[in-house]
């Protein structure tokens, strides 16, 4: 019969691999929250068409499709001046959201990992439903805003659900 201590050791090794492979230090949680909030604030600037001049920069563009004098011109790669507010907002939302998703709680244990996974699955489902509804009913330029919002919807839904479940648990 296998010794209890050996069994504990094997189980612990498996659980440790699972915990450390995907999650990062809880210190990144605050940074994630700040970046995500800044990204959401930045989205409102993008929607109101604000393009601060100091954010104009030369950028490398791939798959550039232009119409010059009524003739279509395609370039695989080009360097042009563009306002990079969109890019900064997008990266801020994605990076902030990812940090929120991956940062450990102060007291992270296996139940917290389960709640985290459940919240990610729940957010993925709701996100898919929202995207399908948007694909069916929103067209032309408005769909650009859908794609913009969609950068952060998955992370936002995850954060809301996870925080709600954890706070409900803390109240019990």
């Amino acid at each position: 019969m296998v010794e209890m201590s050996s069994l504990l050791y094997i189980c612990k090794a498996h659980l440790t691999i699972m915990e450390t492979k995907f999650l990062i230090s809880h210190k990144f949680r605050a940074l994630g929250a700040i970046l995500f909030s800044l990204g959401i604030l930045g989205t409102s600037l993008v929607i109101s068409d604000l393009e601060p001049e100091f954010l104009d920069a030369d950028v490398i563009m791939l798959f550039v499709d232009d119409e010059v004098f009524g003739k279509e011109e395609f370039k695989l790669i080009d360097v042009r001046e563009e306002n990079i507010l969109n890019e900064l907002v997008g990266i801020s939302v994605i990076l902030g959201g990812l940090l929120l998703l991956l940062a450990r709680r102060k007291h992270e244990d296996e139940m917290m990992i389960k709640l985290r996974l459940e919240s990610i699955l729940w957010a993925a489902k709701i996100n898919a439903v929202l995207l399908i509804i948007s694909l069916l009913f929103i067209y032309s330029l408005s769909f650009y805003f859908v794609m913009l919002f969609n950068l952060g919807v998955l992370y936002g839904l995850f954060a809301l659900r996870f925080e709600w479940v954890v706070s409900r648990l803390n109240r019990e």
Partner: protein
Amino acid sequence: MKNQVKIVRIEKGITQGDLAEKISVSRQTIHAIESGKYVPSTLLALKLSDVLDKTVEDLFELEEND
């Protein structure tokens, strides 16, 4: 799955907080296990049996629909 964790813990005079500290989980996890909302992993079940000095089968029992 039914479990006797709460009964055994009270018999031993251990609080949820103490038990949580001994097996390195949060107090909420102990509460969730005791109320049947969370089924622990093999590791946690073995740790619980170790700390509460009972076999895993003494603490956890399958129900008909499991």
